[in-house]
């Protein structure tokens, strides 16, 4: 019975008593803690209280069991491992608790400080690592393991803690300062962001924000390394490693920034996806090449030969692609310059014309009017002059065939020496005489300056010396007459009116008589046949003044069509009533012939646009 009491009951009583005692102590302690938590303004205490509340139960049990074991009469052979096991359990529980607390605090303060997930995860990993290492070292010590690298390390640590603590402290201090400076810097940056109108600024700041934490760590580690007692070789290797890490991070950050800028400015400049991708790829390739060379140089690898190799490869590629390279750069220019785009109608000075169906890096494909596909190397397209008409215009029901005319003045043998004779002859003269004397100046001298509208006005002013009446005759608005008969009536009417009021009827000097002429015209077809407004414009640039004259003047009055040929075609065959009316409204008698050509072209071009 005494043996049972010492072996079983005493340890159990001690266990139960310790449990009861720890229960009440725990209860009292957590009541105090709860009251403190309520008063305290530090919100993180809830994390600590919650975690330790759960863990403290296991601690109570473990300690209770340990005390019971201590008073038991178990053999030391049994006591020792059991107690070590209990310490290990306690250690494990403490580690778990510590990890939970540290993890919780990192998350809490990380979110509060708006640290990235990456940073918080890094912190938790670091904390886990440190705590685990310490726990393992303590566990090894508890179990009295034979000398292992860890034990040796642990023992070395105990004897050389200053050479560890110093760099760690420096690391922590520098990191803290850098993180504080970083936080301050970002506060300032955020204020600047609010004021800044440069849109990519936010992207830029965000791009730097994430890796800056890593840079702070790298820099802090570098400083700590400098003050550490590590051997020089180790220091060099670790420094190079840190530099490499920094360079890689810097390169990735740079690419991230380039991506953002290309995206922003690409949208702004309406760059095609192809061009943006090309720029990004080019930047990536270049960055990685430079990074590679710098890293190799950092680690002491020979870079000169590699650099030369790269140059040789680039030159060889340029030589092999010497025909494609100009096309490539021309394609880039076409894409960025937006000179042409798919759907546009273009015409080269060498004659090829059609709709653009594709613009690649090497060539541009156009579809001609006869449905054939023409492939034009981009370099050639850039080198030559081409006209971009934009999108296709509609086709006419009937084409317009440009016609020209040449004329030969014919003497009628009739002449006048005074205004009465002029009037009498004019009354009976054929329409062709009226036409000649009101239109021949257009072709003979209209290139220099618009001249008076008819020979009668000139003769009255210069030969008869009557500038006032000459001006009246010159002011006749020829365009307002749709027939030559009507024009003649107006002229004769004015003359009769004048003669009634001024019966002077003086004669001109010999040699200044008015000779009545008419003209014989030959109407000649031209090779210009047009089907739409673009072709119409091109033909207008090329046709002779004779053709222009024919379609504007001769057809309207002399051939009695009442309207110029262009307006008739535009309205009837092309349905372009607005442009037809605009051209009909032009008073061609007030232009030089070239000026008239320009006016017609400009009107039509404006209409197409």
């Amino acid at each position: 019975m005494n043996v049972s009491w010492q072996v079983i009951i005493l340890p159990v009583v001690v266990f139960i008593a310790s449990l009861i005692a720890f229960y009440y102590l725990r209860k009292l302690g957590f009541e105090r803690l709860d009251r403190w938590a309520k008063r305290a303004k530090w919100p993180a205490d809830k994390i600590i209280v919650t975690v330790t509340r759960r863990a403290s139960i296991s601690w109570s049990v473990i300690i209770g069991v340990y005390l019971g074991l201590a008073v038991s009469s178990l053999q030391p052979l049994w006591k020792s491992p059991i107690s070590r096991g209990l310490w290990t359990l306690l250690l494990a529980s403490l580690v778990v608790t510590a990890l939970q607390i540290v993890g919780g605090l990192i998350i809490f303060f990380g979110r509060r400080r708006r640290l990235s997930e990456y940073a918080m995860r890094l912190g938790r990993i670091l904390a886990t690592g440190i705590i685990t290492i310490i726990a393992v070292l303590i566990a090894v010590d508890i179990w009295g393991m034979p000398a292992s690298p860890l034990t040796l390390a642990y023992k070395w640590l105990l004897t050389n803690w200053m050479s560890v603590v110093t760099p760690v402290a420096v690391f922590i201090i520098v990191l803290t300062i850098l993180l504080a400076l970083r936080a301050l810097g970002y506060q300032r940056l955020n204020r600047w962001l609010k004021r800044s109108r440069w849109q990519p600024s936010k992207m830029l700041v965000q791009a730097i924000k994430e890796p800056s934490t890593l840079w702070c760590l790298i820099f802090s580690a570098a400083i700590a390394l400098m003050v550490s007692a590590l051997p020089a070789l180790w220091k060099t290797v670790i420094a190079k490693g840190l530099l490499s890490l920094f360079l890689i991070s810097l390169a990735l950050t740079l690419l991230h920034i380039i991506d953002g800028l290309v995206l922003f400015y690409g949208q702004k400049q309406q760059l095609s996806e192809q061009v943006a991708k090309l720029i990004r790829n080019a930047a990536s390739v270049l960055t990685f090449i430079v990074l590679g060379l710098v890293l190799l140089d950092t680690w002491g690898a020979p870079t000169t030969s590699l650099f030369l190799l790269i140059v040789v490869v680039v030159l060889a590629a340029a030589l092999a692609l010497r025909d494609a390279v100009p096309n490539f750069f021309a394609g880039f220019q076409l894409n960025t310059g937006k000179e042409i785009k798919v759907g546009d109608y273009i015409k080269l000075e060498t004659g090829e014309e059609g709709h653009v169906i594709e613009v690649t890096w090497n060539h541009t494909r156009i579809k001609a009017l006869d449905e054939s596909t023409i492939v034009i190397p981009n370099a050639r397209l850039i080198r030559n002059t081409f006209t971009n008409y934009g999108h296709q215009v509609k086709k006419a029901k009937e084409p317009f065939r440009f016609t020209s005319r040449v004329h030969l003045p014919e003497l009628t043998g009739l002449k006048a020496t005074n205004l009465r004779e002029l009037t009498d002859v004019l009354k009976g003269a054929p329409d062709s005489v009226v036409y000649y004397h009101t239109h021949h100046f257009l072709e003979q001298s209209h290139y220099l300056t618009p001249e008076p509208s008819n020979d009668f006005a000139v003769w009255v002013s210069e030969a008869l010396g009557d500038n006032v009446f000459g001006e009246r005759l010159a002011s006749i608005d020829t365009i307002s007459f749709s027939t030559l008969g009507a024009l003649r009536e107006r002229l004769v009417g004015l003359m009769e009116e004048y003669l009634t009021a001024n019966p002077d009827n003086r004669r001109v000097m010999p040699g200044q008589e008015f000779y009545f002429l008419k003209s014989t015209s030959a109407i000649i077809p031209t090779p210009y046949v047009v089907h739409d407004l673009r072709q119409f414009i091109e033909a207008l640039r090329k046709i002779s003044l004779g053709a222009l004259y024919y379609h504007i003047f001769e057809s309207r009055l002399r051939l009695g069509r009442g309207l110029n040929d262009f307006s008739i075609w535009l309205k009837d065959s092309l349905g372009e009533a607005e442009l037809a009316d605009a051209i009909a409204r032009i008073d061609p008698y007030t232009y030089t012939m070239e000026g008239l050509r320009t006016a017609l072209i400009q009107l039509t071009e404006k209409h197409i646009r």
Partner: protein
Amino acid sequence: MLASALSGKVIQNINSTFSGGGVAEILSRMVPLSGQLGVDIRWNVIKGDEPFFQVTKKFHNALHGRTETITPEDFITFQTTTKRNISELELNGDIIFVHDPQPAGLVIKKKEIGKKWIWRCHIDISRPNQEVWQFLEPLVNQYDAAVFSAPSFSRKLPIRQFLISPSIDPLSDKNKELDRQTIDSVMSKYKIPTDKPVITQVSRFDYLKDPVGVIQAFKMVRRSIDCRLVFAGGTAADDPESDKVLAEVKETAGNDPNIHILLIPPGSDIEINALQRASTIIVQKSLGEGFGLTVSEALWKGKPVVASAVGGIPLQVKNKFTGLLSYGIEGTAYDLRQLLTNPDYARWLGENGREHVRHNFLITRHLRDYLLLFLALDHPEEVIHL
């Protein structure tokens, strides 16, 4: 298109000389040019002796309105030579294009051979000697059409009369661009210094060109402006008067070192060209002109021109726009002074003049008119559709 419409037709030009004068000059260019267009165009000259050309010269002056003593023998000489030419000359053209009065009588052959006949009058017959005109008129009326250089040359004729101005060939030796070296060498050859403004008249030694009047006008200008006069002339094979005129001109000029009388041999086109280009002002103070090709030549070179308002000159010189027109010696002198003292205005006139010639008096326009003329013979209507 015009040339192809004349395919198969032979056009035969007939005048009095292959060289000297404006007609020969035009035909020497026009014939090969027409040939290049595929038109079968030929050129023949009539034969004549000294008496015949004396008579035709008198007819020329008389038709221009100058007083000439015309005798019945003159008409007989003309008819005799004409008949001889009719018998000797092969008239094989579908269209026979007769130039000026000398060959005008050939139309007598029309009754026999038919064909289309055109009389090309290069001279001003607005105030003709009635005796001579009455002799020529029946001949002219037999033609299918007549061509005059200016409206004022027309008469009331029962035949169609067309207006075709003569022209210059811008690529010929007389009109093409010359380099400075060539110009200077010609001036040097004729010992004409360029230290002063140079006034030049280029024309035959003919009374109708009024060379004496030019010298008189020049002397009036020299009273106030220091300048030089160059009178560059030549003779024509069918003009027996030219030597006499040259002598009178030299006498009028006297020993004035600022007056240069140059006898330019036929064919010296480069030299004529250089003289015109070296000049400050070109004068054409004619008393009578057919057309006055030298005016267009001067205008084509961008030179300011002072010319008489006679013949076809007003067609080329639009007064105060493409040049200045004068009516007498005093007027000519006044215009010369005006241009010499206002070089910018002179330059403006010259530029306008060149443009005016480019549009109206180049050989291309002339050829086109001739081709249309040939077509019009078979198309009496006013509008011909090709």
